[in-house]
């Protein structure tokens, strides 16, 4: 665990804890774009993601008094967690997280991707956003938040089996989409 302290981050945190609006602005400027990306990764729709970003920041400014700065990275991790929770709240109510879209089941065999270093991050982001809600959410939680299928199941009110199948299908579908993209680019 990183013990080094980012002075800039620490001063921002202290300022926000005192309700200082300048500090809040600095926090927003430093992290809003990354956090927007987190929200979009989860909810896909840009407008809704903006709403969630807004709600998340209000929550952050409210509860930052309880936050304990633990060194470099701890602030970003906490902010991301808040945004993730906000996104999940929305998804639990509005997304069909149980659904398995059979139409999109790829015919591709088990050979999965080995290297995607040639694909740009923005393209990958686009592809992830195109996944069905259920697949995308499980993928996010498993890959980006390091959650186990058991944890995902309780967070999304689905079964563990559903979680693992959706993750499996998400990978398959993403592989197919990447392949299609590559084919398209080569033309």
């Amino acid at each position: 665990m990183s013990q080094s302290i980012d002075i800039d981050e620490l001063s921002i945190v202290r300022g926000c804890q005192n309700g200082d609006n300048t500090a809040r602005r600095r926090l927003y400027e430093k992290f809003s774009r990354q956090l927007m990306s987190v929200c979009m990764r989860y909810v896909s729709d840009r407008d809704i993601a903006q709403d969630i970003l807004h709600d998340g920041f209000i929550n952050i400014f409210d509860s930052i008094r309880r936050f304990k700065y633990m060194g470099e990275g701890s602030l970003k991790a906490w902010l991301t967690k808040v945004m993730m929770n906000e996104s999940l709240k929305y998804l639990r109510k509005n997304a069909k997280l149980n659904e398995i879209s059979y139409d999109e089941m790829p015919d591709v065999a088990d050979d999965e991707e080995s290297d995607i270093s040639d694909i740009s991050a923005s393209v990958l982001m686009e592809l992830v956003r195109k996944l069905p809600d259920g697949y995308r959410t499980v993928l996010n939680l498993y890959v980006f938040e390091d959650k186990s299928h058991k944890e995902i199941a309780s967070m999304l009110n689905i079964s563990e089996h559903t979680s693992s199948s959706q993750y499996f299908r998400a990978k398959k579908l993403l592989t197919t989409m990447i392949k299609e993209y590559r084919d398209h680019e080569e033309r």
Partner: protein
Amino acid sequence: MKKDDKEKWIEQLRQKLDDFSEDVPESVWDRIEKDSMRKIVPFWRRWQSIAAIIILAIVSSVMVTLWDSSSEYIQKQQDKNISNLNIESKPIMTGDETNHDRIAILSREDEKPIKTKKDGTLSKNLVKAVASDWAMYNDSENETIPAKESPQVEKLSQKETNAAEKGNISSESKSETNTETSQKQASNQKRRAKESLYQYNANNIKREKQWSIALNSGGLGVNSTSNINGAMMRFSNSDYGLQQDPISSSLNMGSDNFIRNNYFADLSTINSIKTKKKHYQPVTFGLSVKFELDRDWSLETGLTYNYLFSKLDSDLGSDMLHQEQSLKYIGVPIKIGRNIVSLNKVNIYGSAGGEVETPISGKLKTYNVVNGKENLESEEDIDISKLQFSVGASIGAEYKLAKRFGIYAEPGIVYYFDDNSGIETIRKEHPLNFNIKLGVRFTFLK
């Protein structure tokens, strides 16, 4: 570790997207700034209201203390007047004496103090009380006859003298009988005069005033449980509390005010969602100080602590939600009390007044229930910046266990005004309620 399970490309995916950035229009910050600023102000207002309440409590205590000490001063002055009265009175009664002196003589005789006005004179009522009996008063020892009576008596004695010429013995015996009768009359009247005087005194003399400190605990009469059809409010307003009007609030999706969007998958399913609310009896503790204004009236103030707890269960089909709301208030009551019956050990009194409370903390815990297992989803602070006003009346019965210590019970009714906070509590459900306070009281003399 899970990471071993992940393929290389997944790890690459993670690395590429972890720090990815998306553009955000400036309007989002404007909204955030505006909405977050709105929350700062209530925070300060809360401290202002607490400060106001404390100042009010201090000022009223000081005022009552000053009132008491000023009446104490008057009492001391009157004590002086009484002693002056006694010293200055003349021992022998004559027809020319003023009522002032006559009363003084009476009081000195029986060694009973007389209540006077501030300037040492007697109140008109007192004089009136005694004057009617005094008119007939005749001091038997000195055979003094009031001026009014003298002409009649003189006439009588004149007649007697005339009659005496006819027969000496008969006139003498007649005058003797007259003297006896007038003596008896005089002593009766003197007695009556004294009775009037002391009766008046007994009703008006000031006794030392008391004040007392009480500790009490109390509760409201009912829990409140209700089942409603409709969507439960989840975070539908900036205060994150349980809302009063589920349906209309839920349709409020995003607006200029800071209302967190309340998301429902399908609005048509709202009616099929069942919500169960339960407001528990509040827990109340109080410390109060009661000042006696006079024999019958008193003024009471103090500090109270109230704890309100509510539960909300909602079945949303795929999701079961459970919320717990807990609110803590500090309040300052002001009450006027009136003694109804005062016996040796038991005291019955009535009391009426109001109270202002400020919330000091509020928490909303949300749990979701999946497969029978409960998970804490979030724990949030409820920020109410509104004061809670209430009025009430009660009857109290106090039993003295010792000279300065007693226990009491005070049942009554209370009405809670809507604090316009939008938070749902038992006070919103049942604004008019029955409550009872039980406590101990320590009495002190000023």
